[in-house]
């Protein structure tokens, strides 16, 4: 499926959901617009436009994403997602450091030492700024930081 067609289908579903849910919330209540006012108004606009976009794709199919491309962006996001989970266990800064080292070694084929040379100062600076100076309460791991 082309990107445009996918966008048309997704925005149709989103628009329709917002429209119907907006009706349930109340489009016009107590002599004025209700909580569903904007959802109904712009939900229906989205539905109409998504149909028009779909019709456009019948004429020009538009660009598509290759399977490789989809895989790449999903895998990068997955790597970031796993790092987020790791934060709860190892603490934010340890997991971010591991993420940097793993990325540099595995994706960019940096030797471990070179990767450490980049990751350790980066994380150290981030730690000093965000924890020591600004005292942002990042998740801590069992090392206590």
């Amino acid at each position: 499926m082309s990107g445009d067609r996918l966008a048309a289908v997704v925005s149709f579903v989103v628009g329709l959901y917002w429209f119907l849910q907006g009706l349930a919330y109340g489009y016009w209540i107590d002599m004025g617009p209700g909580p569903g006012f904007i959802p109904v108004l712009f939900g229906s606009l989205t539905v109409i436009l998504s149909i028009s976009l779909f019709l456009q794709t019948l004429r020009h199919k538009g660009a598509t994403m290759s399977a490789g491309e989809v895989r790449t962006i999903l895998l990068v996001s997955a790597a970031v997602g796993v790092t987020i989970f790791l934060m709860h266990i190892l603490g934010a800064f340890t997991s971010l450091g591991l993420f940097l080292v793993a990325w540099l070694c595995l994706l960019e084929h940096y030797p471990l030492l070179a990767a450490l040379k980049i990751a350790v100062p980066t994380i150290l600076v981030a730690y000093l700024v965000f924890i020591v100076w600004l005292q942002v309460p990042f998740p801590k791991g069992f090392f206590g930081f």
Partner: protein
Amino acid sequence: MEIWNYLLLGFGQALQPVNVLFAFLGGLMGVIVGALPGLGSVAGVALLLPLTFKMNPATAIIMLAALYYGNMFGGSISAILINIPGDSPGVMTALDGNQLAKQGRAGQALFMAFSASFCGGLIGIIILTLMGPLLAFFGLKFGPPEFASLIVLALTSIGWLLGDNPVKGVIAGAVGLLLATIGVDMIQGQPRFTFGLVNLSAGVPFIPFVIGLFGLSQVLLMQAHSEEFAGKENPYQKLSLSSSFPTPADWARSAWTIVRSAFLGFYIGLLPGSGATTAAFLSYIAEKRLNRNPERLGKGAIEGVAASEAANNAASIGAFAPLLSLGIPGSGTTAILLGGLMMWGLTPGPLLFKEEPQFVWGLIASMYVGNLLVAITCILAIPFLVYVLKVPRSVLAPIIVVICLLGAYSVNNSVFDLWVMIFAGLLGYFMNRFSFPIPALVLSLVLGPRLQTSIRQSFMMSHGSALIFLNRPISLSLLLIAFILTLLPALSAWQKKRRSAPAAEATR
């Protein structure tokens, strides 16, 4: 002439070495906090406030104010260099600023951003000096109906942000408005579209969303299209100040933009409950409308950077007018400043100007000093800042991810926001890849919540009559402008047709 004497009195205060020093230190901290994504001036001022309780109140407020406007300088740095807006007023700077950096003009973009920030701030301070208290009362005239009309005007202007395919543009804008409806409804107190997630009850967390939309999506782009980027490092300039100086043509294009945006930004900063972010967005739209080559904006036009930066600095100054003369905080940061002032036993309000002229005018005079010092420091730092571009892409990509995670978390100290960031990153990638205009989505996401609230407050004020939007002069004029501007393209098309019709007859 009275003002002149007061200002001299103020400078006597502001130029004391200790006050100059703290204006500089506050400004510098503001720049750093502003450049760090996620941490805005609210966090900076809140953090510094307890440390200032032991200081002399005038010195303390001079430092905190400097932190606030210094923050507006800093936001542009990360926006231009790595396409992550440091804070929400920096979003519009990223649009053109990062494009300029990609064209190898990062130095010039930064120079223009800082100069525009300085000029915007300066114009703001001059207006504040001359008629601040008066304007604060004028800002009060802006009630819910006026806000609703202003946002309607802004949204009709969205047409100019649409890009090549108008259908895609309007979809992006409409979806932005739909996303803006997520969260507990302000008027009815009813949760909407939260899918049972408590974390969505406050709405889509805006800054984490934008960090993903801009920052993470570009890392995805680098990875998915690595062959395009292979061997092509970011064009990076020689590390010198003179090569960062914008060209005369750049200045010529930006001069009026800066002045216009500063006035607009200052006025928006005055309005209750709207701050630097709204100012930057509206100035950018105005620039898009008024620019002779609007299609250049968003593709690396230096006046886009100037518009947004001049406006957000002027707005940060504008927010001081209601704070000092009415005791009303216009934004989160000024609310904290108000708390600080009360702690020191200074009560902002109409009496403050009479009872504590030394304090008020010392603060205003210090803004001239601090603004200049921060601008000079920032400009001198350009050669070092541009150094970021020397970092090879293979290293920069994972570091950007780390910065995105740190920044997105710091806004609300919430892990949930990190997932929002990833979602927005994927969305941003998709929108980029299939040319859906991101600015349209961001704009309606910013203005949407205020639109709904204002419309509904207006109807409550009028007990159900829509005439309230037409009965009030400011609201009516805003709606008329919106109406004319929407009709303008149709009108000019009709005129073209009419003009070409006789011509066609003549050739017949």
